[in-house]
C-alpha cells in the first residue's frame, strides 16, 4: 500500500511538472495582457531541440539549454507578429502552434526511436533515504525543483515587488502604464520570451525526463492544458500548483488503470485528462463575474502608442 502511494505521488509530481512549467510561463504572459496560444508549439520545439542536442552531444544540461533557447526563439517570432505588427493574438498563437508542430516533426524525423541520455535524478545524502518522504520529496530531477522554485519566484514577484506592480499595470491598463512612462511593448516582449523559455523547458522535461524519447506530437495537448490551467487558477500563481497536480494525478491514474487491465477500453481512459479539462473549465468559468474580476483587463488587446 505504501509502495503504491509512493509510486502515485512520485508519478503525479512528474506528470505535473511540464504542465506547471508551461502554465507558469503562460501566466506571466497573460498577466501583462498577452494571450499566447502557441504553448503547444513552443513545447514541441523545446522537446525536439532538447532531445536532438542531448542525443548529439550526450550532455543533458546542454539539451535543457537548447530547449529553453528554442522556446524563446519561437516566442519572439510570436512577439514580432502580434506585438510589433499587431496581428490578432489568437490567430498568431495558433500559427505558432502549427509552426512548432511542423518544425519539430521536420527536425525530429531523424530522431524517432533512438535513445537519448536521461536527465538524472538528484540524490541527497540521508534525505533521499527516508522512507516515503525520501522518494516523494527528495528523489526527483533538477527540473522538478526548478519548476517549483520558478513558481515561487513568480508568485513573489507578481505579488510583492515593484516589477510585479509594473507587470500588472501593463496587463490591466496599458494606456495608463504607457502614460507613466513604462515601455509597454518592451515589457510584453520580455514576458512573452519568459513564457517561451518556460514552455521550452517544459518540452525539454517531456523528451529528456518524462518519456525520454522523441515521438511526433509527443506533448499530446499538454500545452493546451497549461493554457486552461491559467484560467483554472484565475491568474493566481499558487493555484497553478493545485491544478497541475490534479491533472498530473489524472494522467497517472489513467495510465495506471490501463496497466491494471481493468475491463474499461484503454481509449476511454486515455481520453480522461481531456474530458477532465473540459469539465474543470466549465466548472471554473461558470462564475463569469469571478473570471472578470481576476482576468487581466487588457488580455488579448493590441497596444499602439499614440503620440
Amino acid at each position, binding site marked *: 500500500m505504501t509502495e503504491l502511494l509512493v509510486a502515485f505521488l512520485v508519478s503525479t509530481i512528474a506528470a505535473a511538472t511540464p504542465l506547471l512549467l508551461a502554465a507558469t510561463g503562460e501566466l506571466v504572459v497573460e498577466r501583462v495582457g498577452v494571450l499566447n496560444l502557441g504553448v503547444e508549439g513552443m513545447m514541441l520545439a523545446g522537446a525536439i531541440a532538447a532531445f536532438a542536442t542531448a542525443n548529439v552531444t550526450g550532455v543533458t544540461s546542454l539539451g535543457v539549454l537548447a530547449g529553453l533557447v528554442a522556446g524563446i526563439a519561437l516566442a519572439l517570432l510570436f512577439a514580432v507578429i502580434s506585438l510589433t505588427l499587431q496581428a490578432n493574438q489568437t490567430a498568431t498563437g495558433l*500559427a505558432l502552434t*502549427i509552426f*512548432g508542430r*511542423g518544425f519539430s516533426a521536420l527536425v525530429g524525423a531523424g530522431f524517432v526511436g533512438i535513445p537519448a541520455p536521461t536527465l538524472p535524478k538528484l540524490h541527497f545524502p540521508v534525505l533521499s533515504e527516508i522512507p516515503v518522504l525520501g522518494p516523494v520529496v527528495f528523489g526527483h530531477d533538477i527540473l522538478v525543483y526548478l519548476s517549483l522554485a520558478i513558481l515561487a519566484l513568480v508568485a513573489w514577484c507578481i505579488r510583492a515587488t515593484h516589477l510585479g506592480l509594473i507587470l500588472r499595470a501593463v496587463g490591466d491598463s496599458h494606456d495608463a502604464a504607457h502614460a507613466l512612462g513604462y515601455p509597454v511593448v518592451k515589457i510584453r516582449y520580455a514576458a512573452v520570451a519568459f513564457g517561451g523559455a518556460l514552455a521550452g523547458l517544459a518540452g525539454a522535461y517531456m523528451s529528456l525526463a518524462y518519456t525520454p524519447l522523441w515521438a511526433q506530437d509527443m506533448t499530446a*495537448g499538454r500545452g493546451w492544458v497549461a493554457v486552461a490551467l491559467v*484560467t483554472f487558477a484565475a491568474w493566481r500563481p499558487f493555484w497553478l500548483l493545485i491544478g497541475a497536480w490534479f491533472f498530473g494525478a489524472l494522467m497517472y491514474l489513467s495510465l495506471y488503470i490501463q496497466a491494471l487491465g481493468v475491463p474499461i477500453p484503454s481509449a476511454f481512459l486515455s481520453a480522461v485528462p481531456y474530458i477532465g*479539462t*473540459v469539465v474543470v473549465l466549465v466548472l471554473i468559468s461558470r462564475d463569469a463575474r469571478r473570471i472578470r474580476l481576476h482576468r487581466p483587463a487588457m488580455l488579448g488587446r493590441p497596444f499602439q502608442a499614440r503620440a
Partner: protein
Amino acid sequence: MLKIEPRGYESTFWRYASPVLALLLTGLTSGLIFAGMGRPPGLTVYTFLIAPLLQQDGLEALAVKAAPLIMMGVGLSLAYRANVWNIGTDGQFTVGAICGGGIAIAFPEAPFWAVFPAVVIAGTLGGMANGGLVAWLRIRFNANEILTSLMLAYITQYLLVYLVVGPWRDPQGFGFPQTALFSDDALAPRLIEDTNVHLGILLAPLFSVGLWFMLEKSLLGFQFRVLGQATRAAKFAGFSENRLVWIAMLISGGLAGLAGVFEATGTLGQLTTTLSPGYGFTAIIVAFLGRLNPLGAIPAGLLLALTYLGGDAAQINLGLPNAVTGIFQGILLFYLLGCDFLLLNRVGWRRTKAGAAS
C-alpha cells in the same frame, strides 16, 4: 530609415495584395530552409508546389484533398468573422465520419437511395452536435470555445480509435485496426467514372458561394460582420450574440462533419484510426488565406491541398520528411498575419536627413 505611418483606413489594394506577398515570402523562406538542409532550393520548391500538378491524376488528387479543406475553411470563415474561435474542426470532422460511417456499416444491404442520404444526414448532424456542444458550453457556462473545441477533438479521436479497434473492427480484417469496407451503395457517388472525383467536390464550392451570399447579402450576415468588428455596436443594435454563436458553431461544425462524411465515403470507403491528416489546423489557414471570405476559401483550399501533395512528392522524390507540409503551412500563416500590417499602415523609406529633422 524605415518610415511607418498609420493609414487611418483599410487599403483596398493591400487587402488582396497582402496574401500574394505572404505567399511569395513563404516560398522564399521555405527555399532558404531547404537550402539550409542541403537541398537545391529551386528544385525543392518546384517539387513541392508544381510537380504534383503535372503528374497524372494530379488535378484529381488536388480536388479530392481540397474538398474537405474548402468545406471546413468556409465554415471557419463565418465563425471567425463573429469572433467565434472554433479550432476543433478536426473533432467535428471525425464525429461526422463516425456517424456517417456507423450508418454505412450498420446497413450494408440497404439501397443507395435510402442509405446514402442517411449517411450524409447522420454525419452532418454529428458534426453539428459536436459544434453545438461547444456553443452550449460557451453560452451556458462561459467556457472558452478555443479550449473546449480542441479538447473535444482529442476526445473524439480516442472515440474513433475505440470504435475502430474495438466493436466496429472488421471481423475479416486480419486484425487490422479498420472497419469493413462500406457497401458500394453507401459510397459517395462519382461525378466522373473510374476516378475519385466524388459528390463532395461539387458541393464544396456550392457551400462557399451559398455562405458568401448569406454573409454579404443577408441581415444575418450583416449581424455576423458587426458582431466581429464592433461587439458593442452589435449589442446596442439588439443583435443576439448567443444566437450568432449558436449559428456559427452549428454551421462550422456541420460543414466539418459533412467533410468527414465525404472523406469516409468518397475517399477511404471505410473508417481507420487516422482519418484527418491535420485538416483541422490546415482549415484555419484556409480561412485566413481566403481573407475570412467564403469565396476566398476556394483558392485557399486548393493551395493548401497542394501543400499536402507537395509534402508527399518531396518525401518520395527528395527523401524529405513529409512534415515539411506542416512547417510550410505555419510559415504561411505567420506571413499572412504579418503582411496584414500593410492594410492599416504605410511603410516606406525616409531620407535620413528629413528623418533627423522631424
